[in-house]
């Protein structure tokens, strides 16, 4: 790629290129500073950068046991999250990787220990506190052997979510994780591959978590059974495990690449002929979604321009030209070559944000893109989304949110204000107007919080879900012990 970079300013492309040659620590700091300076922003670039970095962390890490690896990833993840807490996907990807490693370790161990597992299982709480190093490390590293850890780490997490999340979460939130643990430990005992939930059985696309590929790789490791040989086995298996973890992360990266197309696959179920669809700002996901529907059907799209933060990009998306500054800074080659909706034979109407309410009565469906989705089913989206959702509510128009699962965060903030970032006021008032600059206080929020009751349907790469069902997907994708990985004070 010789001519991707137009200038010197670093961005995602530069970061990924540098990742190959840079020292790991430098890469981490590099990403942190890029996040801080907002040179990598928006969900997808952040997710891609995080996943690639974690891949690198795993590849470079000289690990002796899983616990250390988890610790390392937690530590790196914590730094990334602190760098830019408002990009919630960073935390999501870290949690996904952590969960995946835990799964792999569990699988791996179940292969190793299937004959002795029952003994270990029963003894482990005592051993964990009394035994010398080799077994202890294993005990810590695998979730099966540490119900204590589970209970402890679950407690704050669940109280946290319970107290915040009134309706949907409460019954399952408190009980599910221990239940799942017992389930999985049974599964482990039987040496069966883990199916974490009914949901994964039904899901159209295979989640990287649910199809463990390591069964082929690792059976030969499980022969020795006594405590003395455990360390050796760990060393042997960790190599395989490493490959598995790496392939797991690569799967996540693939998922990030494909997520838009997967979501677009559902488009034709939701968009019908001659409908009028209202959307907002310039999201590739939404655009692909609509383009896919346009393959078979003719409909009308009304695009609200989302002034002042995203209107240039929106205009560019509508007209099909690549916005000058966006094209260079967020180049994922795919996005550059998206053809505009009009080319697909769709009537596109660009409208101002102020006209949304007036135009809403003519709209059949509202499709929103999102920045992040919160466990309660609410979402953080480009500023202006809430007005649209609210207007749709008044007119009883269904609101559909198109969002990859990677944007779904288990975090549930104490106050939503803390998730909303305030940008450059210069977008609203020009800086050269000295009088206004001096006398006005200008807030330019980049995002809006849309509460779950304003959303009717989520379309993720796994299918369509009601907002109240999102907690389930959260539970499937993130381990309860990882939810607060970035807040050591909430962990035990």
């Amino acid at each position: 790629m010789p001519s991707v970079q137009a200038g010197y300013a670093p961005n995602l492309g530069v970061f990924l290129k540098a990742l190959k040659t840079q020292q790991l620590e430098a890469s981490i700091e590099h990403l942190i500073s890029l996040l801080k300076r907002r040179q990598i922003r928006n969900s997808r670039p952040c997710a891609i950068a995080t996943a690639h970095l974690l891949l690198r962390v795993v590849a470079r890490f000289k690990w002796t046991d899983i616990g250390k690896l988890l610790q390392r990833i937690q530590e790196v993840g914590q730094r990334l999250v602190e760098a830019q807490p408002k990009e919630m996907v960073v935390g999501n990807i870290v949690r996904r990787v952590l969960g995946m490693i835990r799964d792999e370790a569990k699988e791996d161990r179940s292969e190793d220990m299937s004959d002795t597992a029952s003994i270990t299982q029963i003894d482990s709480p005592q051993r964990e506190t009394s035994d010398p190093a080799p077994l202890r490390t294993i005990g810590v590293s695998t979730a099966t052997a540490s119900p204590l850890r589970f209970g402890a780490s679950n407690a704050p997490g669940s109280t946290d979510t319970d107290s915040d999340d009134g309706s949907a979460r409460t019954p399952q939130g408190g009980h599910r994780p221990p239940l799942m643990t017992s389930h999985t430990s049974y599964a482990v005992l039987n040496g069966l591959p883990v199916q974490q939930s009914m949901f994964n059985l039904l899901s159209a696309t295979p989640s990287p978590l649910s199809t463990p590929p390591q069964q082929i790789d690792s059976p030969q490791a499980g022969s020795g059974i006594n405590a003395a040989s455990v360390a050796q086995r760990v060393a042997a298996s960790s190599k395989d495990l490493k490959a598995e973890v790496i392939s797991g992360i690569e799967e996540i990266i693939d998922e990030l690449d494909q997520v838009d197309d997967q979501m677009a696959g559902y488009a034709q179920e939701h968009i019908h002929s001659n409908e009028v669809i209202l959307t907002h700002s310039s999201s590739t996901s939404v655009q692909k979604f609509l383009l896919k529907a346009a393959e078979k059907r003719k409909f009308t799209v009304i695009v609200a321009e989302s002034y002042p933060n995203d209107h240039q990009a929106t205009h560019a998306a509508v007209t099909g030209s690549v916005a000058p500054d966006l094209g260079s800074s967020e180049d994922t080659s795919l996005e550059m070559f998206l053809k505009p909706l009009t080319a697909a034979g769709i009537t596109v109407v660009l409208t101002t944000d102020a006209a949304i309410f007036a135009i809403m009565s003519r709209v059949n469906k509202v499709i929103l893109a999102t920045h992040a989705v919160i466990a309660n089913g609410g979402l953080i989206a480009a500023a202006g989304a809430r007005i649209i959702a609210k207007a749709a509510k008044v007119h009883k128009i269904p609101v559909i949110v198109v969002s990859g699962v990677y944007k779904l965060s288990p975090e549930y903030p104490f106050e939503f204000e803390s998730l909303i970032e305030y940008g450059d006021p210069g977008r609203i008032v020009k800086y050269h107007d000295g009088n206004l600059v001096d006398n006005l206080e200008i807030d330019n929020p980049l995002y809006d919080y849309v509460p779950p009751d304003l959303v009717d349907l989520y379309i993720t790469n796994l299918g369509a879900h009601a907002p109240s069902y999102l907690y389930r997907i959260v539970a499937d994708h993130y381990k309860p012990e990882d939810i607060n990985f970035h807040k050591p004070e909430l962990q035990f």
Partner: protein
Amino acid sequence: MSHAHKSAKGAAGGEKGRGASKGKRGAGAGAKKPEDDREESLQAVVLADFEGHFSPFSQEKPKCLLPLANTPLLEYTLEFLAMSGVADIYIYCGAHSAEIEKYIQASKWYPPLSPASPFKSLELVKSTARSVGDALRDLDARDLITRDFLLVHGDLVSNLPIDAALAAHRARRIADKNAIMTMILRTAGLGQHRTKSGGVTPVFVCDPTKNRCLHYEEMHALQANKYLNIDPDLLSDHAEMEIRTDLIDCGIDICTPDVLALWAESFDYEVPRRHFLHGVLKDYELNGKTIHTEIVEEHYAARAFNLQSYEAISKDVLGRWTYPLVPDSNLISGQSYKFERGGLCKENGVMLARTCKAGKRTVLGRDTSIGDGSTLTNSIVGRRCIIGKNVTIRDAYIWDDVVIGDGTTVHRAIIAHEAVIGSQCKINPATLISYGVRISDNTEVKEKSRITRAKRIEDDVEEVVPSDPEIVGEGGKGYLFHEDDEDEDESNESFIYSTAHLNISSESISTITSSISIGSPTTSRSRLSSFAGSISDDGEAGSSNENFHHDAVSGLLDTLKENGDFDSAKLEFMGLRLSNDATDHQIRRAIAVAFTKRIAQLVEQEKLEPSKAAASAFGTSGAENFLKTVAVGAGKEEDQIDFIHCLQKDLVHRNQGAMILAAVCQRLYQMDVLEEDAFLRWWEECEMLAEGEAEEMARVRTKTKVFIDWLREAESESGSEEDDESEDESD
């Protein structure tokens, strides 16, 4: 630890690999297109500490490390460079270089010690350079710069993506080798703007079709004539021309190595704009070099080069204009600012009493505690500060470890590290309280006072100054800071073309700086102006005096116009005089010109009779005293005569000069400013010249003859003794 070693080795390998690949790529590109060195890494030169007025703070600490919104200024600059993708950085330090070095080496930027540094190399160049010019000449001599580089100052705050400007610069340079420099300028509107420099307005004359800068001049706020001297050739050569005064000069220059060569050639250039830019543009015919402008209308770029701009930029940071360079981006590791609703930005561990109001646009550092009933607005408070109960803080910038007692009011002040303010104090606007000063309870600190505890350096001997209880109260520590006492070194580093001190006479601009720099520029000006003179006036002798004359006249004229207070004008005038080493004759000339100009104006514009006009001008409060003490000094006759000569000379080219001269003479005699002997002698001298006297001069004094005759009569009446005496003297 072995692990660490390995990773370090890996890094070295990686570095090498990258270097190799870079080289290869560069070579490939070079083969194709010799001019296009896009793949080359970008170099930057940071001038850390050469310009700027931050007294008394900069006495003890380097300016670029002073905190702005709790983050050292230099961090913003380096952040900007990292954002622009700069690879190699040279930081030039003037004074306090050891401290800067220590800071840089401990920071994340220093590549040998911090793997996280985005830069490939960062070199601190400690030099004895005392000005930007010296530094750049030194840089040229070192031969470090081989390709285009960014020249910035260590006090730059900017979120500007520079790629577009770089590309434009490169395109120009490929087309024309003589396009040596591109300046980045930010529009700021024609009206008042807090971030525009108050004292000096840079005027850029540009050709918008080519983005070329044609002429550069600086205008002072109090300059009487708002004229530019533009070479008439420019008008014929360029079809279109823009004269812009609405630009913020953020000091970002994209330079080719030729720029350094030019600096080296002209050893008398000291500052980048007034000297270098002005000079190079002026010498276009000679050297053919062109300098271009890149005028940006989006994004933020400004320099905190004095306290006035410090305040403006602090406000901009609080207002998030510099986004993403805002406190809650936590640019320095270890910061944990969070932005909350209503614009409060606070770090972890801040303790707010339940009834305190820490509101709008406020930043609070870690472990700061605020007591009950206190109110904070538009302020920045550093780490570990203790703010008592019922304290009111408005528009104040409080650095780390400050203690403020109960019931104190702080308004628009800067309080430096570790200062202690007692309870029930009142800190009035534009106060600067330096490091470690202690203000005892129940003290009211006067407006515009600058209080420091630093040792005063005189003749290279550090001298501990006793605290002044009148200022800091009984038991307080600190004394009033006077710039005039500064050592030569200190004054040199405050090398700047700010004339913020001139603001003092215009009431409208009552910012912190105007008060701060009341004396500050004075000492530095001498050097400055002499250099300026030598360039702008093509080495004409005594040109520095032109500068002095110009500034002095405009200052006085303004005072006269506004019926202002001559006491402050006098202060300013004396400052100018000291800084320029102006001779007594020059002073008299300046005063004479100012007064005659004013009288002439009154006569012409308001149709006053000359005598009334004179009465009005000289009747300005304090004018009499001013004239007596400054213009004619200790009553020496020669001085008085000289003053009359000056008046006469200046009135030659004014309308009704003769009438005015008569009126002025009469007036001055009445006011006892000038004595009759002086008048008589002056008259005699004029008469003696006879033919030698220029025609105009003779013409101007004709009307005064009546007055002189009257004087003579009066004298002869008063007695012949005196007469004899005076005649003896005159011989």
